[in-house]
């Protein structure tokens, strides 16, 4: 089978292609493939060398290749059992581990660097009595909200700071291990509040070595809003204490809202379509917000639960979770998002372009991010293009290339393009109007000539001032006859008049038009 090509060639007495090839193509050496192992000679002579797939299948399976170690190049790495000392330990415990013999002996223990300590805030007795003592000021107003701060003694504060240091600020563990007397009535938020407020006061009242920004940043990092935290926890508890009935009701309500929303959207769309087909106009009704993940109305309990819970864990949530009516909660959800994104945008120089309001709601309400330089305005009108280019060239600009496509520059270029286009349009119209005026002047001149020839009483000066009077007198006197007579000429000039009226290019045009009209009347 393999020789089929040459067989056919010989059968058709065609010359061998290799033989025909010119001398520039050297003859290939005859295929000297060896007979692969595992095939009998007869079979090989039958199938020939051009059946590698068969040969590969028949080839004997080999054992896995032995790994080649670089034995000759370098000897095996030496490892030693060495004792080491951990620099984070205060005692001299010597532990032993296996290390490469090449490693230096007196190197720092590599894991010592992970022993990171939180900054410890300490205070002297003097500082405590001056800034931190709240036990004798029971009526300290907190943020003007009229709630009393709980009294803290110095022992309790010391104990709290000791615990904080001991458990590295793991507040849940601190709360678990802390043993305050029951009459103090502290909860976890109280502990946090006390700790952070003490730290803030210390930083505020001590001389600060660095700059003011760093100080305020540090103070901000130690902010703790106890009321918000307590409210959050209350909401959490109320969320968890919902009964199965309440959960089911919430779910049902949620589904109901979704259904209503869908119906309304469908209704709106249908009305829109209807109006567009019948009246060719938009209804002008505001579109419903397209559903993009965040459902309208309630934070969906069953579907968004995981997400919500995560934010709870991350201590991010700030809006009350209880549903309070569709509209208000939507705004409550949307607003913080917008303000946050505005700040984010300002920081990262992101500029959002508003979608044109005419975009129909059925289109995806999403505009992909793009580079501004890719959206440099270009000339859409092909007929104007050359002229615009020409005028740009006169100004010494290139409309297609902007060296610095900043927002302002692009806007300016766009404005310039528009202005130039508008100017050219106007110029075109003006030219046309001028041309028309020329034509009508010519016509006027011709008719004047006719009139002079025919009647001889047509004064050119008459046409301006007395036009109306003349007209009226004509109407009154001639009546039907005159009107019927004038139809032909009027309709003749109507086109021109309309043209002129539409173009309203300048004042002179108007006067010319009036003159022409007057003359037409006169001529009748």
């Amino acid at each position: 089978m393999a020789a089929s090509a040459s067989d056919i060639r010989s059968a058709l007495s065609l010359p061998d292609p290799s033989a025909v090839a010119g001398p520039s193509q050297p003859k290939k050496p005859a295929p000297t493939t060896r007979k692969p192992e595992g095939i009998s000679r007869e079979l090989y002579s039958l199938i020939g060398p051009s059946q590698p797939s068969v040969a590969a299948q028949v080839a004997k399976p080999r054992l896995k290749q032995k790994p080649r170690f670089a034995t000759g190049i370098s000897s095996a790495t030496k490892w030693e059992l060495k004792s080491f000392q951990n620099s984070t330990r205060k005692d001299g415990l010597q532990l032993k581990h296996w290390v490469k013999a090449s490693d230096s002996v007196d190197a720092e223990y590599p894991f010592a660097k992970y022993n990171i300590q939180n900054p410890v805030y300490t205070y002297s007795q003097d500082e405590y009595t001056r800034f931190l003592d709240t036990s004798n000021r029971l009526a300290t107003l907190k943020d003007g909200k009229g709630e009393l701060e709980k009294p803290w003694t110095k022992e309790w504060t010391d104990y709290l700071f000791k615990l904080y240091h001991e458990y590295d600020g793991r507040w849940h563990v601190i709360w678990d291990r802390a043993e305050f007397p029951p009459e103090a009535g502290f909860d976890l938020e109280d502990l946090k509040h006390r700790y952070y407020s003490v730290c803030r006061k210390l930083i505020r009242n001590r001389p600060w070595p660095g700059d003011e920004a760093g100080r305020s940043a540090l103070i901000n990092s130690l902010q703790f809003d106890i009321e918000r935290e307590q409210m959050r926890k209350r909401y959490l508890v109320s969320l968890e204490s919902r009964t199965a009935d309440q959960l089911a009701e919430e779910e049902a309500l949620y589904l109901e809202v979704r259904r209503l929303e869908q119906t309304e959207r469908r209704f709106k769309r249908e009305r829109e379509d209807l109006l567009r087909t019948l009246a060719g106009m938009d209804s002008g009704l505001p579109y419903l917000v397209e559903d993009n993940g965040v459902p309208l109305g309630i934070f969906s309990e069953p579907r968004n639960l995981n997400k919500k819970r995560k934010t709870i864990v991350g201590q991010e949530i700030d809006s009350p979770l209880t549903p309070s009516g569709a509209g208000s909660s939507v705004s409550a959800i949307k607003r913080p998002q917008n303000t946050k994104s505005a700040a984010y945008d300002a920081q990262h120089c992101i500029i959002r372009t508003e979608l044109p309001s005419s975009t129909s709601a059925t289109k995806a309400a999403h505009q992909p991010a793009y580079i501004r330089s890719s959206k440099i305005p270009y000339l859409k009108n092909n007929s104007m293009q050359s002229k615009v280019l020409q005028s740009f060239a006169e100004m010494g600009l290139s409309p297609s290339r902007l060296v610095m496509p900043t927002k302002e520059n692009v806007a300016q270029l766009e404005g310039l393009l528009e202005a130039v286009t508008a100017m050219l349009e106007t110029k075109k119209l003006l030219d046309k109007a001028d041309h028309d005026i020329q034509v009508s002047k010519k016509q006027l001149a011709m008719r004047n000539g006719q009139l002079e020839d025919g009647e001889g009483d047509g004064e050119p000066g008459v046409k301006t001032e007395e036009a109306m009077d003349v007209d009226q007198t004509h109407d009154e006197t001639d009546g039907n006859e005159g009107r019927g007579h004038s139809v032909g000429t009027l309709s003749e000039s109507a086109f021109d008049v309309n043209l002129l009226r539409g173009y309203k290019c300048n004042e002179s045009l108007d006067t010319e038009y009036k003159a022409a009209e007057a003359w037409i009347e006169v001529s009748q």
Partner: protein
Amino acid sequence: MVNYGGDEVCALVIDIGFSSLRAGYAGDDTPKAIIPTHYGYTPATPDADVAMGDGTDGGEASNKSKYANIYIGQNGPSIWRPGMEIGNPITDGLISDFNPIPPLIRHALQDVMRVEANEHPILVTEPTWNTPANRERMAEIMFEEFQVPAFYIANTGVLNAFAAGKGSALVIDIGQTVASVTPVVDGFVLRKGLHQATLLYSARSSKHSPGLSHSPLPRFIHGLSKGLLTNATNYRGPIELWPHQLIASKITNPSNPNQPKTLPSLITESLRACDPELRQVLMGNVVLTGGGSLFTGLLDRLNAEMARTFPHAKIHAPGNPIERRYGGWLGGSILASLGTFHQLWISKEEWQEHGKAIVGQRCK
């Protein structure tokens, strides 16, 4: 190795449970020595007892003489010997009798693993409700009798969470005698769990561990099954499935407040004691471990039970039975082979300097 944060210092890990004592090298995935915690002993002759009786210098000395012989290991308690009795040092997960502990550890280290204890730092596990006196005693045994260079005692709840690769978890550990539910947050056990863990037949241990939820239900079930198998009577009910009894116990009168708690009730109580913020974290990281959790169908049943009350609960249960049976040991093995852990060892020097107080300070 440095990439994984590991640094092997040839530490040993010893995990003592009711059924077996596990010992092995830190960094391994299975313990090298698994010997039964039960031991056989022949009581000392009465005259020796009398001889020590007049001394009365504390329980230790007199207890030591209680045994004329002690038989430990695979061939210890399981072989019949004339006059031999079988004891177990563990009650309710705690070591209540320290006398057989040094022989047990010595057997595991020297006879089975063939290592010298004084050459290796040793990490020992303890149940969550361990008493300070108990852990100090353990430290004393290690430093004084075994002359270890360094010692640490770690909580099985935490270690089980580590073995599952979690820092915060709700660990459900079902051993042979005790089932416990331990909330672990950031590698620390939250001790302010429950304030009324009613333990069947053990007023003593409930005094020790006011805040921890564990239940001797497994022991009770074992005992029940043993009774059922050995002397079944006409008025005893049919054998019920064990795991289901762990979960929905019908063994005793449900109105009896002293009956052992079922697993769901343990979980609910443990969670209720935790901060509401933590509940979701814990329920998302439930770790089921312990040899008792290997009952067929237990995991499915527990899943179903928990889905009813906590729709977002996620149970992590290792499919490998070794990992479940020796989860505490495995966590210890992971912990003791970490490079960052080596600063936590209590060294012999520190022990000599600070005494027993260092144990409570270091092993929080």
